[in-house]
């Protein structure tokens, strides 16, 4: 993202090569898209109903969790069908600290991230021994166990059992003229942007290259001096921290945490969002989040009785039309337009 890296890429692109060999969407175009997207994102909450603002906030929250999952699966090649667990841990950390610890929401957010990082890192240790599909199964087991653990007697005094916990939604501070939906929308937007900034930096750096090298060829990665155990467990921790932040935000946005919000259906939903958005694409996470929020509603409208089937049909259609996810489709279209003009 720095100028240094741009100039070092430039000669490779400019030297009269066939245009079809262009490596990707030009940086300038990406920046323009980001800027336009930002302007729209800032304007939207002043143009739509509160409920729509709430939905858009939820899209961003899902996108944050999908971004974390993408770092793990898309960039490091470790499968997880259990990220609902880390969302739950983040959500309950915030809810419990606010309910019993007298914490303000903002203080709980980094604690939720840190706690999830530690749990994710620790889970990553035994995960080192598991090949991809077995890791998927192990994480799935985690997702299945989580709601029941939250309801179980030893935890009930803290988690509120089946009832869950009510969470107080913060108002805009310093008399800023925004209602609480608008305020949480902007809080989520800023946090999401910061996390996306970290993710972009990470994947373009030494660390990101090591993560991807491990994904592509672990034996060669080791021979290049990469400490696989360190990178895999840390990536697991980072990924869990992203999910934990998403969970923490969701607790206050929904104003409620309950075990049945964090079933394996959520875990699988995140995986679907990852694939729909585009595995290995950072902006793709937003598409994935939008899919998770809006497609079930669309399916419901198509047919009340057969909403599940309609959802499945839409999912299949989307996968058929965009085999590389939404990000892949956008990239293909942009490249086509660029190549035609050149």
């Amino acid at each position, binding site marked *: 993202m720095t100028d240094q890296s741009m100039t070092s890429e430039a000669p490779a692109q400019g030297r009269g090569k066939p245009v079809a060999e262009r490596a990707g969407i030009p940086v300038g175009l990406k920046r323009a898209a980001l800027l336009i997207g930002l302007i729209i994102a800032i304007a939207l909450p002043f143009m739509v109903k509160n409920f729509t603002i709430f939905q858009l906030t939820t899209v961003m929250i899902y996108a944050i969790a999908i971004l974390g999952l993408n770092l793990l699966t898309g960039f490091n090649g470790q499968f997880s069908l259990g990220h609902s667990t880390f969302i739950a841990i983040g959500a309950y950390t915030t809810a419990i600290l606010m309910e019993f610890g007298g914490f303000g929401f903002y203080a709980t957010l980094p604690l939720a991230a840190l706690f999830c990082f530690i749990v994710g890192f620790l889970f990553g240790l035994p995960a080192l021994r598991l090949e991809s599909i077995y890791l998927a199964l192990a994480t799935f087991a985690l997702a299945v166990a989580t709601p029941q653990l939250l309801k179980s007697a030893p935890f009930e005094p803290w988690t509120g059992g089946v009832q869950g916990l009510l969470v107080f939604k913060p108002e805009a501070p310093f008399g800023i003229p925004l209602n609480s939906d608008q305020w949480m929308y902007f809080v989520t937007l800023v946090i999401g942007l910061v996390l996306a900034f970290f993710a972009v930096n990470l994947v373009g750096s030494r660390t990101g290259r*090591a993560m991807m090298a491990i*994904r*592509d060829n672990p034996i060669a990665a080791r021979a*290049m*001096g990469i400490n696989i155990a360190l990178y895999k467990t840390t990536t697991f921790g*980072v990924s869990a921290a992203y999910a934990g932040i998403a969970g923490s935000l969701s607790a206050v946005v929904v104003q409620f945490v309950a075990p049945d919000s964090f079933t394996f259906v959520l875990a699988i939903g995140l995986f679907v969002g990852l694939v729909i958005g585009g595995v290995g694409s950072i902006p793709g996470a937003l598409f994935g989040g939008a899919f998770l929020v809006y497609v079930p509603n669309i399916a419901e409208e198509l047919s009340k009785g057969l909403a599940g089937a309609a959802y499945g049909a839409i999912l299949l259609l989307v996968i058929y039309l965009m085999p590389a996810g939404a990000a892949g489709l956008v990239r293909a279209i942009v490249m086509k337009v660029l190549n035609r003009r050149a």
Partner: protein
Amino acid sequence: MTLEVEGAGPSGHAAPSADGAGAPLLSVDGIAIRFGGIVALDGISFDIAPGEILGLIGPNGAGKTTLFNCVSRLYTPNEGDIRFRGESVLALAAHQIAGLGITRTFQNLALFRTMTVRDNVLVGSHPQTRSGFLDDALGLRRGEPDRTEIDALIADLELEDVAGRLVADLPTGTQKRVELARALAGRPKLLLLDEPAGGLTHGEVDDLGGLIQRIRDERGVTVLLVEHHMGLVMSISDTVVALDFGRKIAQGTTQEVQNDPDVIRAYLGSSRQ
């Protein structure tokens, strides 16, 4: 390119020291390794002097790749020791070997196929750089390798035109050069090449011989070369070691090994070729 030639003589590269004056860069000392019933290596010993190109030959299944894997610490020998500049490498983990100054290529290309050529080479510089998740997430770019050095390396191996391409899209000959560039990006003192000529055209093999010598001369890299292409091995090696069925059957100059009766027998009598 400013690479220090540590351990090499003042002339740029030391000739193989028959007088034993220079300490060996690598000592393979009686290593043996078994896989179930198969004895893949059976008490192999030899030294490599700094600046040398040592050719390691032998029929299929002789144990050449297994030896590489022991030096890279992908395998742990059952017996014996491997010392690099006098220190045993067996105490180290596989990921610590590159940082020590030993890098390698693989017999059947082991590239990061969905990454670009440049990124593959950059991964090779991993041991040269330090920076963790936090530095990198914050974009501090503390761990970035020297871009001019990487660019020079890419240019040196004639990979500029494909630097931004995905490795998987390139022909074998080019992929082999990417592996070489990636191994050199780790600034090795010892380079292990496992059948670098495999899958190359005649012309490419001729170029490769010159390239390996140039790498040794210009970068002061000692080379351990496994190769079936006898023309290549015999034209550039200072010393040749021949293996058969996990045993060392000959060691000497290219002349000596070519005329060694055991070597001739191993190659002629081998229906495994």
